[in-house]
């Protein structure tokens, strides 16, 4: 192809043989590439993970490299909900409402041990993992995770987005919770997810 001398400003030319300004690609690739590289996060910071999240967004770790410099404090202009910190039961309907207010396409990152599993707060007040309230795409472990950890999670999410198919509309279907219980997943699954593991002390409950 080679370089051609640049014509003068007053010359309008169209030379189909010169393909410098064209490229061919799959539409999926183009859409996913643009989506993955301009994820606007909705920060839902409730605890110390939010401090690490702020560090990730600040100049040293610079989330702007991933197209995420624009924190979206309105869920309607957000693409990815980053839940950083423990979520008490009192906040459960709030995060559910925020997730439902976000526009498709939307993704969720659960940052840290508490958001993912309840962490050390295996008690009466804390939700045992936000995946019992909203669907989660990427879990970032750590207590709290370092900014590098969060960025690795973000890159995993970008990889996931880049593998999506635009033709598969089921990805964009809004999940409707069960109208009676307002739960996405069956109660038995929630109870099983919330069971303590490791060396947590087993307690007796009064049932219900």
């Amino acid at each position, binding site marked *: 192809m080679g370089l051609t001398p640049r014509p003068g400003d007053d010359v309008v030319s169209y030379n189909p043989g010169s393909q410098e300004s064209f490229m061919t690609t799959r539409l999926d690739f183009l859409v996913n590439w643009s989506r993955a590289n301009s994820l606007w996060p909705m920060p839902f910071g409730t605890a110390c993970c939010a401090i690490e999240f702020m560090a990730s967004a600040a100049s040293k770790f610079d989330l702007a490299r991933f197209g995420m410099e624009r924190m979206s404090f309105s869920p309607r202009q957000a693409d990815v909900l980053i839940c950083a910190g423990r979520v008490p039961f009192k906040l*459960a*309907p709030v995060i559910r409402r925020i997730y439902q207010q976000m526009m498709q396409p939307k993704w969720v990152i659960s940052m840290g041990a508490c958001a993912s599993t309840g962490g050390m707060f295996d008690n*009466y007040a804390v939700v045992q993992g936000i995946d019992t309230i909203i669907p989660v795409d990427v879990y970032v472990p750590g207590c709290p995770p370092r900014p590098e950890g969060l960025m690795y999670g973000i890159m995993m999410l970008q990889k996931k987005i880049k593998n999506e198919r635009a033709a598969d509309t089921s990805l964009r279907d809004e999940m409707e919770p069960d109208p009676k219980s307002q739960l996405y997943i069956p109660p038995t699954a929630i*109870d099983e*997810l919330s069971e303590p593991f490791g060396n947590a002390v087993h307690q007796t409950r009064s049932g219900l």
Partner: protein
Amino acid sequence: MTAPFTPVLAGSAASGDAPASPRNVPHRGGPENPSAAALRAQFAGAIQRVDVVWNETTVYVQVSRVHDIIAWLATDAEQQYNYLSDVTAVEYRDGEQPLQVVWHLRSLPFRRFLRIKVELAPGAALEVPSVWDVYKAADWLERECFDMFGITFSGHPDLRRILMWEQYREGYPLRKDFPLRGRFSRSEQLRQALAANPEARYSMEELSIVDAFDELPADMRARVKSGERTGE
């Protein structure tokens, strides 16, 4: 050449006045807060006993007189306990031990700290008088104590839950008979939590709706008048 640095020693750091530290403060039996003697003189029958632990004086008083005692401590010119720093309760794992309600009082002019305790015997009603009319700070402190321990503060203007949501039905979390994970299963807890309307979390008073009573539409006026709290 610079002059040698000489620190200014004042207060408890001055020579001859050893700073209060666990080394030179007796665990029990240190000097009593002068207010304890004044209380004994003023409310002879109502003072049950006085403990001094780590130089902090605890006065155990009768439930029926605790409001008078705290009001007197707050207003008396020789005491001036003008700062209520905490209201809380203590329950021991030993079921024989009484449940204690604790008031932490501080006198800023006299630099004194006094702890008032009331003992509620097992089986007795969990009810103590509110000191809200003495200290406005008691408002939220007593609500928290009510929320966590289920202690009723009679005379409190707005005694309802403050940390847990108002529809919380599992009991009082800091009581010893409360299981750490709550009484209901996780799915039931989540179902109840999600059933709440996040925008109905605040009472009419907190949203300043009551302040605008005269300008409210008729249906809202009726709702406020009927004592509706959570907007549900």
